[in-house]
């Protein structure tokens, strides 16, 4: 048993000195009590307490790390590579023609269709001359910072298994996801905040629900902590219950500390008791640090404008992006942002079966500006140098329409585009390529285990060495696969 929230050095904590019994309620010595007191003060004065600035972050587990933290944007539903980043002039010429000879219709629903050109025009952007469609003008303006992988392939044609694969490496239910592995491997930087925070789309959870941030067989403290951003408390049980005055709570915590310390002293040699005391200290600190980290009160107007905080068309996703930056700044190791929820009518994700333009117009309006703002903001703060930005989706979309004369595209796992940006990767770079119609990969195929192996590498982790024993197997994020994508490393 151990508290993985704690850095190794903090694990064996000596019991606090005995408080003279008579005065324990009025004394402020003892760390839990003093934290509780500071919480009380913070609450009473509404003062913001600055987050504890991360120090000595990320030297890497197996070798020096380029990235100290990661933010992953996951776009649910399957973003079309053909409408965003994979420019296919030949597809324009073949618009309305048959796919025959270039591949078979793999669509999930399998209705016949003809090749369809991108519904958006493409243009070159930045000094790198990267092609980006008119759908994403804000991200296009960041083109020189983005490192595109055009040759991604997924194992499943079905949303949930494919979403699981992007997040956990496995198409099955319940394997630990990447953030949990990072928390397990690297621990936390800021003790006052969780190492792995998830910001689900305010419109709904992704396919598969909270399994996408499970710790699986890893200890529960590595599970992603999902913050809500729609006005209520960011996490469950953060708030001291109504009806309990701050003074009540401080008294509770003082007594807890006193009695638990005594108990630890009576049972020497068991570090669990010290660790448990520590966990209550951290809990008390989180009651201060999380509200502070998730409040935008101190964000200047220019920043709010950059993200589009007050623009209702992004459906609250801009708030998540700004919160991601605040959390990264305060030392959260891995922030995962979901853009788009699961199923429903009307659609709240990128699953453009019926009409590509209508669907992707709506979704891009939520995603483009906030994600571009996040990249620019990180860059302005000098954080892009040691922060890895990962933009991903579960699969691409078919070059043929879903049905004759239709305007939507079906799922397509044989080729899609993701991008990385920031720490350790080349900017304005394009890795891998698809064929003339964007059906299959013809150059430098990248599997999801390859993708994961590379992200771990940038964090100083050898993906073959980060293992955890479970049911007869030393499990890895990358299972028995994964090759480093060397071509994209700067």
């Amino acid at each position, binding site marked *: 048993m151990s508290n993985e929230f704690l850095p190794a050095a903090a694990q064996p904590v000596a019991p606090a000195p005995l408080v003279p019994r008579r005065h324990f309620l009025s004394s402020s010595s003892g760390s839990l009590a003093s934290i509780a007191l500071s919480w009380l003060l913070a609450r009473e004065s509404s003062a913001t307490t600055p987050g504890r600035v991360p120090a000595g972050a990320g030297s890497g587990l197996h070798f020096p790390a380029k990235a100290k933290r990661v933010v992953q944007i996951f776009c649910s539903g399957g973003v079309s590579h053909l409408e965003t980043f994979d420019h296919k002039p030949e597809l324009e010429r073949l618009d309305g023609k048959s796919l025959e000879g270039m591949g078979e219709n793999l669509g999930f629903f399998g209705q016949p269709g003809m090749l369809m050109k991108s519904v958006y025009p493409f243009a070159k952007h930045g000094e790198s001359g990267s092609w980006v469609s008119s759908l994403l003008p804000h991200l296009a303006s960041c083109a020189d910072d983005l490192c595109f992988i055009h040759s991604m392939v997924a194992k499943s044609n079905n949303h949930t298994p494919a979403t699981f694969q992007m997040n956990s490496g496995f198409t099955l239910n319940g394997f630990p996801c990447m953030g949990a592995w990072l928390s397990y491997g690297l621990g936390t930087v800021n003790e006052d905040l969780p190492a792995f925070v998830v910001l689900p789309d305010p419109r709904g959870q992704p396919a598969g629900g909270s399994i996408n941030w499970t710790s*699986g067989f890893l200890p*529960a403290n590595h599970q992603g*902590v999902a913050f809500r951003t729609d006005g209520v408390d960011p996490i*469950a049980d953060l708030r001291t219950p109504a009806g309990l005055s701050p*003074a009540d709570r401080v008294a509770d915590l003082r007594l807890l500390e006193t009695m638990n310390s005594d*108990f630890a002293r009576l049972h020497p040699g068991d570090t*669990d008791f010290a660790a448990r005391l520590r966990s209550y200290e951290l*809990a008390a600190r989180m009651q201060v640090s999380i509200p502070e980290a998730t409040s935008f009160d101190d964000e200047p107007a220019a920043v709010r404008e950059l993200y589009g905080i007050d623009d209702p068309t992004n459906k609250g996703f801009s708030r998540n992006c700004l919160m991601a930056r605040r959390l990264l700044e305060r030392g959260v190791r891995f922030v995962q942002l979901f853009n788009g929820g699961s199923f429903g009518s009307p659609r709240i994700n990128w699953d453009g079966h019926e009409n590509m333009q209508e669907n992707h117009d709506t979704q891009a309006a939520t995603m483009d500006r906030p994600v571009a703002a996040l990249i620019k903001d990180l860059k302005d703060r000098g954080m892009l140098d040691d922060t890895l930005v990962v933009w991903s989706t579960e699969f691409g979309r078919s070059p043929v329409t879903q049905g004759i004369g239709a305007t939507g595209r079906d799922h397509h796992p044989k080729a899609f585009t993701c991008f990385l940006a920031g720490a350790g990767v080349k900017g304005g770079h394009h890795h891998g390529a698809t064929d003339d119609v964007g059906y299959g990969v013809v150059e430098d195929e990248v599997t999801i285990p390859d993708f994961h192996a590379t992200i771990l590498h940038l964090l100083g982790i050898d993906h073959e060495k980060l293992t955890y024993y479970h049911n007869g197997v030393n499990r890895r994020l990358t299972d028995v696969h994964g090759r480093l994508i060397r071509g994209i490393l700067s």
Partner: protein
Amino acid sequence: MVLLLSVRCRLAIVVGLLLPLQPSMAADGDRHDRARALLAARCVECHGADAQEGGLRLDSRGSVLRGGEYGPVAIAGSGTEGELLDRIRSADADERMPPTGAPLTADEIASISAWLADGLPWLGAEGDADRDPRLDHWAWQPIRRPDPPAAVEAFQALPGVEPDRNPIDAFVRATLAKEGMRPTAVADRRTLIRRLSFDLLGLPPTPEQIDAFVADVDPAAYENLVEQMLASPRYGERWARHWLDVVHYGDTHGYDKDKQRPNAWPYRDWVIGALNADLPWAQFVAYQVAGDVLRPDDSGAIEATGMLAAGPWDFIGHVEVPETKTDGKIARHLDRDDMVANTIGTFASVTIQCAQCHAHKFDPVSQEDYYSLQAVFAALDRSERTYSPDPAVMQAHAALDVRRTVLDGLRKALEARRADAAGARLAEIDKALAAPGGGNATPAFGWHSEIVAASGPTAADTEKWVQVDLGREVAITRVVLHPCHDDFNAIGAGFGFPRRFRIEGSSDPTFATNVVRLADSGADNLPNPGTVPQVFTVDTVSGGSRYVRVTATRLAQRQNDFIAAIAELDLLDADGTNVARGATVTSIDSIEAPPRWQRANLVDGEFPSPSGDAIALRRERDELLAKVPLEVTDGLRAVDEDLAGVTRQREALPALRPLYTVTATQRGGIPRPIHVLARGNVSAPGREVGPGALSALTMLAPRFELPPDAPEGARRKALAEWLVSPDNPLTWRSAVNRAWLHHFGRGIVDTPSDFGRMGSPPSHAALLDWLAGKFRDQGGSLKNLHRLIVGSATWRQRADDDSSSSAIDSSNARLWRQNRRRLEAEAIRDAVLATAGTLDPTAGGPGWQDFRIEHPEHSPHYRYDLADPADRSTWRRSIYRFIVRSQTQPFMTSLDCADPSMRVEKRNESLSAIQALALLNNGFMTTQAVEFAARVAREAGDDPDAQVDRALRIAFGRAPTDEERGVLVELLRSHGLPAVCRTLVNLNEFTFVD
């Protein structure tokens, strides 16, 4: 040079290092050892049990001498000749072996050369030359019945230490003595009863139980206490939870839709009951694999099979993708994989799933073994079935099924004669009547019920109702139902129109009272009416109805599921006015997907127009039917009456209960052909295999020799018999090891679901075999095993770290003391309820739910934050919680509750800030702290000293020290009794058990 062809091999290092090196035979055997170790490390991955490149194996003396496809590769007695030496010495990198990694050094080559020159000495009988050395691993060996070692004299009179109480102590203490450790003193009675109570019941003892035990002068006081606890129904509730972790039981499917499984719980209740009844282990195991086959008349044996369906299930991959497509094949392959892993991992503690893609890297499990196990389950699909606790009822239902089949056949014959008599025109008319009418004028199609998955024989009989509120009582004279039109699944006209239904009126919106039947569809299923309006004249207009409800009693089938949909409901009063138009519509459910499907569409005046000449066609049809001979018409009427009788008799019988399990009905009991799949790829099937199990257990036949036409169940019966055979060492060791884990916090094998080479070796191998043999030979009684374990001095030791032994064995693998344990999520929650005095002991039945569901029509969202912690229906034991896979319960999850998606052999015991926040602030904790305070006030009166005393005695079973009393009374006076109670349940002493 073709021998040892340079097929590029994977690095053999990992496997090689794990192979046991044969011990040295003689002083000069070092070089021989080294040579064999080199072969093991660098060659056998490609030339061994897993793979035989070029037909060659190099893992036994016989196989080296025999050579490969192209002849021998070495000559005994020659250190210079033979292809083996040629290839390892080759200068040509394409030819040289091994093909990967550094070439062998000159020194290494010299060792091999010397070993060959010495005649390839190899330990082991020559007859076993081809034996896979991995078979020597402890787990595959038969259970020995070792005699307990002699008691360690020095430990029999140590101060405070109990003398040996049973043979467990002799085994454990022999190891302690050998390794220079000593046992710890016996725990005091207060500690023992608390430990025993949590171990066996998962609940704290009451202060009264503690007092009675501490004061009990009966020499058998302890044994009596154990018996009392083992007889408690709370015992099964505690131990079933351990079992459900391993089989990953859940009440939803998981994956994206995460639909509920409302009828999974009978399996959970069966486990509890079977443990309470101390069902012999062989039956406990066999019923879960094949209870329906072994004991078809025993409802418990049927419920037991819920184990095979306990894990997650990919609804989309099964329901929305047909088995003919690759994704559908993958889904079903993975479904069988889950059944195989769940069965073999759970009962036999072998990790089998690696062999899905390749022969197991570490254990002698081949792909053929793995796919033979898949073949056992090849006819099965997860779904609901029905059963009854009364075998007579099950038989009566079966007899009615037979009768119905006969009548259906008769009806078909009569219909054919009618068609002959009426002429071909009848069929044309019927077709025309069913043909699509004019489509929908607007996209407002109608009302559409939620979709019922085809999960069992009763799915179509799910009742779906929709009703209107007319705002006043109206006497209805005619009811008109307009069917829908939707091209989904190419159904078109009549989409979703219920096959059977009734129409009722009432003055009560719940239709609990004052219900009058206005019309119904008759006893038989209606054919698809197309878009022809269905008109019903109300026979006797008696009074009026404010509410009119249409209840579908047999749903319309789509491809793989069932629905009810109605475009428009007209209710005509005596003047012929449609009073339903614009009324308020409510329904049991609705997919609410505007504009096409919503409740309001039922009364919006929009419906598909019927084909114009429907009325004329009906008249013509009647004329044709007049030509049909009377005997046919009468015969049809008689058959229909009989069929109605069958329906009535069925309704009169006690209803069958639904159970979520596996069934073979979807495939008519015919197993799918199972092939060995190259790299687990469903598109690369290799040779077909029949049913079987693990060939590593050489004492049992690895393949089940069944006749080709044997029923599906014979395969599972054979697997059940293989598992519970007295000769199967895995099953018995696995069971005693799992029990040991929950008594000590650690198994004798620390990897309870993996006895293979990657797992931990047993900390007490002889004891494991002694226990397994005794358990097996004495009827497989788990309760006897508990008696033995908790009766041992080893179990009764103190948990404190007060011995010099910790310097030798700090992890306490050798059990020089008892382990202190943090309670599991369920035990903490149940202990809080017990402490607060609010625990509702109601046992069994559907799980209680501490969430609200949002968006049930698509993918349900389970919102725990919307539940009310004061809802007393949730104050039951945690074993009865409704377990959701997609959103795990946050409070329980923070306490390391098992993830129901994973097979959990052992809980983690983490301590985190999120856990602390949950224990401090979660509504459950604060609500129960207030209840706890109320209980203390009730039981102790107003005196603060007495209150503090009572609170501590309830929470910890002890009186406070003077110091504790002082600070607690001070807290009580300044912040109230609830503050004291909140604090106590957060203390270490509450959460840890010594």
